[in-house]
């Protein structure tokens, strides 16, 4: 840069700055403008979010710093996380979170036999259901006590893990040579994909009751779960179908020539390859499902959004919508962004291994 500099070639970092930020006049102006905007806004935002914000206190009156008032979140964090789950049983929720989170490292380490991972993922929804809902030695917890992040994670994880096998079956069915099966799967997939989830949720909460005999009720959580599974499965089926179509014909032929049956061909030769290739898009679908779970609030299930809404309308915290919804946004952002980075990372790895 400077004529005093001894070396002819500028430092790589400087070259990068030059090339990326100041390649021409227009770009330079934009860079400077952005820089100015950041310099002006970031301190303000940080100040509001953190430095002048109030984290400790017992009521709105304690918020005097002029910044954000995080008290409704801080003081109600148990409600946000565990909902109305019995206090003595919250360890079950924590354990369920840990078990669900364990999928990520399990997928990450390639040393672990894929069959174990698959087995774990198949068992997990049942274990989570049992842990959270109770029965078989655990005290039973009513669905009305489910609320907050608990519901979001419960619906997201169990929904995803049930949707995956169903999506696989639908994808296989759609490619079946048997016309009846094929037609059924196509109808199902296309029907579900052309209706908004929210409609399906209303149907589940209101209409299902019409068809059931008097006195028989299906748990509301089970009902919304079924809707989310049905919905996600239809989309996953399309992703997996794409993977199946991308499979080389030679793989089927080799399997056939070796005398593999249809189900063995699928389960040990085709699907392991397809699933490996479709993990990134499936993970993206999981992110979608995770966000979609917030819609259950319209049928009266209090997920994390429901708790936020009830918090903002509680008399003692009225007027603090910004903070509460910001917290909500950050919660979803952190999880979804991490998952989407992870999906991207897996995708890159797959590209490399080709």
């Amino acid at each position, binding site marked *: 840069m400077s004529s005093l500099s001894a070396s002819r070639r500028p430092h790589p970092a400087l070259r990068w700055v030059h090339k990326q930020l100041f390649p021409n006049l227009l770009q330079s102006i934009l860079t400077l403008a952005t820089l100015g905007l950041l310099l002006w806004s970031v301190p303000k935002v940080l100040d509001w979010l953190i430095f002048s914000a109030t984290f400790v206190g017992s009521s709105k009156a304690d918020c005097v710093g002029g910044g954000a008032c995080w008290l409704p979140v801080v003081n109600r964090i148990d409600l946000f996380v565990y909902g109305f789950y019995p206090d003595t049983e919250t360890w079950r929720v924590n354990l369920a979170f840990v078990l669900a989170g364990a999928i990520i490292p399990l997928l990450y380490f390639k040393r672990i036999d894929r069959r174990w991972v698959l087995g774990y993922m198949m068992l997990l929804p049942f274990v989570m259901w049992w842990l959270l809902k109770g029965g078989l030695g655990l005290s039973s917890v009513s669905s009305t006590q489910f609320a907050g992040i608990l519901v979001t994670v419960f619906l997201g994880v169990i929904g995803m893990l049930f949707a995956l096998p169903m999506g696989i079956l639908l994808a296989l069915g759609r490619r079946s040579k048997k016309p009846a099966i094929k037609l059924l799967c196509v109808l199902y997939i296309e029907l579900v994909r052309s209706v908004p989830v929210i409609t399906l949720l209303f149907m589940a909460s209101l209409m299902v009751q019409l068809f059931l005999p008097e006195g028989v009720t299906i748990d509301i959580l089970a009902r919304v779960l079924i809707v989310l599974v049905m919905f996600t499965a239809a989309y996953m089926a399309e992703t997996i179908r794409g993977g199946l179509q991308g499979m080389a014909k030679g793989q089927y032929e*080799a399997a056939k020539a070796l*005398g593999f*049956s249809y189900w063995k061909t699928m389960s040990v030769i085709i699907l392991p390859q397809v699933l490996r290739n479709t993990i990134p898009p499936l993970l993206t679908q999981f992110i979608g499902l995770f966000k979609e779970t917030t819609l259950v609030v319209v049928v009266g299930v209090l997920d994390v959004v429901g708790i936020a809404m009830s918090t903002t309308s509680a008399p003692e915290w009225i007027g603090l919508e910004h903070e509460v919804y910001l917290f909500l946004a950050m919660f979803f952002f952190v999880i979804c962004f991490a998952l989407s980075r992870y999906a991207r990372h897996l995708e890159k790895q797959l590209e490399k291994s080709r």
Partner: protein
Amino acid sequence: MNTVNEPRSVDADAPVAVRIDALNKWYGHFHALKNVSLEVKTGERIVICGPSGSGKSTLIRCVNQLEQHQEGDIVVLGQLLDDHPKRLRQIRREVGMCFQHFNLFPHLSVLKNCTLPQTANLGIAESEAMAYALKLLERVKMREHANKYPGQLSGGQQQRIAIARALCMRPKIMLFDEPTSALDPEMIAEVLEVMVDLAAEGMTMLCVTHEMGFARKVADRVVFMDQGEIVEQAPPEQFFSQPESPRTQQFLNQIINHGVTAG
């Protein structure tokens, strides 16, 4: 390469391994096989050649029903082929096949490629399957690569593994569909060597190949196909020195002019 012992004539009354009778096959309206009849005795080595699109692949793929035919009968190891799925699987387990593009299972290690068909389809215990797979990998000189994945190996190596994998099913008949034509020239010899060994052991073989050196060395009969028909079949000496049909002569001329490996 070791030469197969002369004389290579197969016992005249050896049992029939494959009998194809008046076979007709259409792809839509395209008549791909026209009234093809062929009998292969147990232990016989057949080389099928002919110009591109003449129906060679279609013919041998009918033998294990990777392609279904519309007319005519195919009897493999005494079993008339029909579309009964279970019987078909049974036949396929006794008929090995090697493909032009190997078609190994890329998500499985070399060893697993060889053991999985045994454990899944023959009900053989894992340990026994492993021992047998290693024996066959040794035979195709790939034992030291047993724990690698197909993607880490050269074409020639992959094809040898594909042969070992097919042999793991203890087949009585082996089908080869241009096993060397996707390979770089320097790898062709290593695959042919394995095939020559296999022939020397008395395996019944149907090979689609343009390797005329291989045909001369191991074939009991060379079958020439053109436009969906068998034009001529003869022992290799006769086939190469005095071809009868002008179409055969033309084909042989072309092959000689383009080098032995031309496809």
